[in-house]
């Protein structure tokens, strides 16, 4: 049944607005989650004064960042100085466009829980990550500051090195699904609940850990956050940024974390399928049945954000040469070995042709 | 519906702008980038022709008609362009270390 162009356009516009608003609010509350969790790990309360349990803290932080003075140093190269945080933030938000949040429910012929259902969805996420390097590289160079330039070159070298391990670790998942489409990849993990998820039944646990470590390095988070830690290189590539532009970098980092969590749940933990599979009887009407997968998806992404912050609060930082050696000499060969082993396993399992 | 000839004309325009940039510019990195532009223009031609051949084949045999030869060629051109860019930029860095300039008119003699 053909949907009219206007219906298609309006429903997609509504989806985009809802997803962007929810993502930005999640970014704000992820910052609060991090501060509270790191505080608890360090045996102190996190922010707890503003609102009950500190829940209004992100709003107050946002107001503070808006009201700070927006400095623009004289000698920066203006077009790139203003463009770089925009590139970083828009790339972080664009990845959410291909992520399916829930089951395939169509309304007026338009898929309700995914903005863009592309045949090459996984490659789009990799491509957007590749473009995100420019935000880092151009910000350091345009700041006209030696420390910023060095910090940004280190950070971009780190990002492009770990992009390889990231991409290679996903090949095992793609081999099992036979397609690059994210709904197909989740569909392969749907039949038997927990056991058919790629982490357990698909035997991609090595690939999962490679993906996790590469993703931590891609998003410049602990323990790989040398280029942007405050005590190193005078805060690295966002030294010269203040108020709104700094807030854009900050939001981009947390939005990237959320994207990594979404992709990890889709690829390794069954996306929106429940771990019980078909054991529980289906209950509730069409509303509950559509929203229950979204609930599972959000729960899993939250577990990943928890893991991110837990690792940040626990592990010390890598030195830069240790970091690069780890990426090139350990993760990449391990990812290639994973591809070979997965290929062998699939070849021996299927009937010979 | 866009006639495929328009894609070919666009790729011709991009190629000629690449040639013009190659001849005018005096910075060696910009000259190298214009070579990449020319390669991209040729890639567009290959993909346009691959689409044309698929459509022509569809009229002869509606069951098995996809022609991907043009796209395979583009794949190989991309790979070779990546290798060439890496080696070319390494050569440019070596030249910069020796002559300390990036202007093509000052590095066009083998002996200073």
């Amino acid at each position, binding site marked *: 049944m053909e949907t009219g162009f206007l219906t298609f356009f309006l429903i997609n516009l509504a989806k985009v607005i809802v997803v962007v608003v929810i993502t930005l609010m999640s970014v704000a509350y992820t910052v609060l989650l991090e501060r509270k969790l790191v505080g608890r790990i360090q045996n102190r309360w996190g922010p707890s004064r503003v609102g009950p349990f500190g829940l209004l803290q992100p709003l107050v932080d946002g107001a503070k960042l808006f009201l700070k003075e927006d400095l623009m140093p004289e000698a920066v190269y203006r077009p790139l100085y203003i463009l770089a945080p925009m590139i970083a933030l828009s790339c972080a938000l664009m990845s959410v466009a291909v992520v399916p949040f829930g089951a395939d429910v169509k309304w007026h012929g338009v898929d309700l829980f995914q903005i863009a259902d592309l045949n090459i969805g996984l490659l789009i996420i990799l491509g957007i990550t590749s473009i995100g390097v420019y935000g880092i590289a151009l910000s350091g160079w345009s700041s006209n500051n030696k420390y910023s330039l060095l910090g940004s070159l280190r950070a971009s070298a780190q990002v492009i090195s770990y992009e390889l391990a990231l991409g290679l670790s996903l090949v095992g998942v793609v081999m099992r699904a036979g397609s690059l489409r994210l709904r197909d990849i989740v569909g392969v993990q749907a039949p038997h609940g927990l056991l058919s998820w790629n982490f357990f039944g698909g035997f991609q646990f090595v690939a999962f850990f490679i993906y996790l470590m590469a993703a931590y390095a891609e998003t410049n988070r602990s323990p790989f956050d040398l280029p942007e830690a405050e005590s190193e290189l005078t805060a690295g590539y966002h030294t010269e940024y203040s108020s709104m532009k700094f807030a854009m970098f900050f939001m981009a980092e947390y939005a990237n974390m959320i994207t990594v969590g979404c992709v990890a749940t889709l690829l390794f933990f069954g996306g929106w399928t429940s771990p019980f599979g078909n054991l529980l009887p289906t209950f509730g009407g069409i509303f509950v049945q559509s929203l229950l997968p979204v609930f599972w998806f959000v729960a899993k992404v939250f577990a990943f954000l928890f893991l991110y912050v837990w690792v940040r609060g626990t592990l010390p930082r890598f030195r830069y040469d240790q970091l690069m050696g780890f990426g090139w000499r350990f993760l990449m060969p391990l990812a290639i070995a994973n591809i070979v082993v997965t290929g062998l396993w699939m070849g021996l399992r299927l009937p010979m042709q | 519906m866009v006639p495929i000839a328009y*894609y*070919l004309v*666009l790729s011709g*325009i991009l190629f000629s702008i690449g040639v013009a940039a190659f001849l005018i510019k005096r*910075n060696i990195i910009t000259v*190298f980038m214009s070579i990449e*532009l020319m390669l991209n223009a040729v890639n567009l031609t290959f993909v346009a022709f691959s689409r044309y051949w698929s459509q022509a084949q569809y009229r002869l045999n509606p069951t098995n008609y996809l022609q991907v030869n043009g796209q395979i060629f583009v794949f190989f051109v991309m790979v*070779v362009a990546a290798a060439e860019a890496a080696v070319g930029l390494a050569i440019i860095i070596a030249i910069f270390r020796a002559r300390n300039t990036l*202007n093509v008119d000052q590095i066009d003699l083998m002996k200073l």
Partner: protein
Amino acid sequence: MHLALFIIFGGLCVAGALNLLLQRHPINSALSLIVVMSSLAVLYLLLGAEFLAAAQVIVYSGAIMVLFTFVIMLLNAGKEERTHGSKMAYVAGFPGAAILLSLLTYIFLSHRAAFDQAGLDDKFVTGTSALSAVLFSHLLLPFEVTSVLILIAILGAVALARKEH
């Protein structure tokens, strides 16, 4: 709709290419080339080549142009000076390129009916499996040879760009 998308992204391609020609500082030329390559990726999508569109973004815009940007930033190439090249380039180069371009445009546009129209058809979208079916069966040897080629290029680049001690 297809025509509107083609005009927008084709126009972006030409604008980016002209900007590469007209800008003085190499970093601006590099950024315009990134715009050209991303617009070309959209044009590949319009022609149904979806894997190539993704590969164009990942390989060209996301890796090769990052390499160019790094080199421009590291070598700190300043604004260009206006020295003149050989006269032969201006005398024979531009008229030759212009003649070639007008000849090609004339031939293509006069035969545009023979070349057919391309629309946003689902039938002509070539999936990744079609490409890999050819690449891993008929063209397995060139595929492996290109991987050896990239290995040699990496070794060569590292050897050429290393500091002499």
